[in-house]
């Protein structure tokens, strides 16, 4: 997401922007103290944090990550997972952190067109790879067919797992998968939905497959 995209957003602050720009409150100060430490060139910075107050990251290494067709030249701590790099360094927050241990699928992204859980991979492993996040699938004006199907079939409640579900579902379209619901359920078992929207998620995926 470019700065232009951000500026074209509605003026109301997102939860994230609210936290970043709020000076009081424990949560705000913790988040505000954390994010700039991981922010890098090319990433959006909090307006409230002067650039010269950013601590340098000891042992940081350079990497170019190609995300949604755009190259990002970054300097990151080697420990940075692909997930944390996407969310905190490049500030594409559509990809969600659920369990952070590869068990829930909320962080699913595509690497060279294949779905992976970004929490169990290091960002440093992915220079030269084509990474696609939920932001790279469609836009609010022009949804990806899977996004439109999730809306049409009500494939979510709280929405936290949704970007991972959709990334997984889009990858599934290119994988060997039987025509029945059971085959879809088996291949979607790595994406947990605590609201239990599973039936509608399967319906959304089948809608896209039937229309393909």
């Amino acid at each position, binding site marked *: 997401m470019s700065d232009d995209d951000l500026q074209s957003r509605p003026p109301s602050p997102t939860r994230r922007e609210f936290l970043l720009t709020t000076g009081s409150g424990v949560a705000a100060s913790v988040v505000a103290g954390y994010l700039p430490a991981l922010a890098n060139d090319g990433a959006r910075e909090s307006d409230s944090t002067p650039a010269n107050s950013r601590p340098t990251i000891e042992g940081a290494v350079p990497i170019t990550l190609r995300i949604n067709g755009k190259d990002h030249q970054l300097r990151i701590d080697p420990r940075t997972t692909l997930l944390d790099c996407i969310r905190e360094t490049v500030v594409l927050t559509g990809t969600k952190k659920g369990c952070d241990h590869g068990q829930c699928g909320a962080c699913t992204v595509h690497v060279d067109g294949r779905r992976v859980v970004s929490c169990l991979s290091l960002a440093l492993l992915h220079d030269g790879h084509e990474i696609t996040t939920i932001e790279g699938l469609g836009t609010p004006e022009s949804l990806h067919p899977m996004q439109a199907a999730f809306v049409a079939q009500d494939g979510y409640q709280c929405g936290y797992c949704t970007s991972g579900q959709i990334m*997984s579902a889009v990858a*599934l379209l290119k994988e060997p998968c039987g025509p029945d619901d059971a085959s879809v359920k088996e291949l979607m*078992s790595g994406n947990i939905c605590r609201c239990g929207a599973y039936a509608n998620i399967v319906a959304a995926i089948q809608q896209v497959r039937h229309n393909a």
Partner: protein
Amino acid sequence: MHTFDFSRPRDLAAAIAGASQAKTAQQGADVRFIAGGTTLIDLMKLNVETPARVLDVNRLPLDKIEVTPDGGLKIGATVRNSDLAHHPVVERDYAVLSQAILSGASAQLRNMATTAGNLVQRTRCMYFRDTAMPCNKREPGTGCPAITGANRMLAILGTSEHCIATNPSDMCVAMAALEATIHIQGPKGSRAIPIGDFHLLPGNTPDRETVLEPGDLITHVMLPRPVAGSKQVYLKLRDRASYEFALASAAIVLTIANGKVKFVRVAMGGVGTRPWRSPEAEAALMGQPADVVSFRKAAAAALRNAKPQSENKFKIELAKRCVTHALKMAATS
């Protein structure tokens, strides 16, 4: 997560030289190869693994699957589990391997996990994964709280008084039934280890899980030529229908001639401290009628030496029924 130095060795020799600096290739290794990362990153986040150096082997030329001149199959160390499971030769000639891989983990994890990574996959024993708890595998000499604790998922075969952790792999169980050979390059040259000798029993040293030494790099796995006309089945029994580790599983390679068992390989998962081949079950089956009576006898033989813990006695009967049913499935397929 502890910090580490990350590098990408340019070739096999550099990878081996880098890793040979380690004091051990087992638990506590200060140098680790990283491929898919699905076990290593998970355990590094838990501070169970704390390597000072991480060597990226993903771009080494170890990602091919090739049929060899003698009709076997050479599987590169960094072939992704999903690519292996869906390879046409594997689906046709080594179906038990395809089924086993696809019964494990999730589609995302199978896209990441590799052949060699799966071979050295670590146990899911919750005491091993929790650094607040004692664990002889993680910290030798601290004790095994699983023996008197939560052990429902843990092993009933190959245990010792020091460790009862289950080997979690499905892939390795199929490879045991297929009599795979693990090919390793190390500082002293190359060697090939039958999969039955690759994983170690816990004994007094549960921190040592494989024969790997510092600098050893798994380059590929060899499968022998497929057994002509064999029926193959992987049956996995678990608490959920998908995305769950086995309580008991069975890998079967079976050939029947004139109603009698002509060739059979039996391996079990979810019950052993390592992928558990059962020569006892195989011996009980050879030359016998391919019927349920024989299958039940073989299953009983496979579990004869099982030693249950306080919460997993059920696994003995479950594993027997798993082996029996898997043999039935193979015989009637």
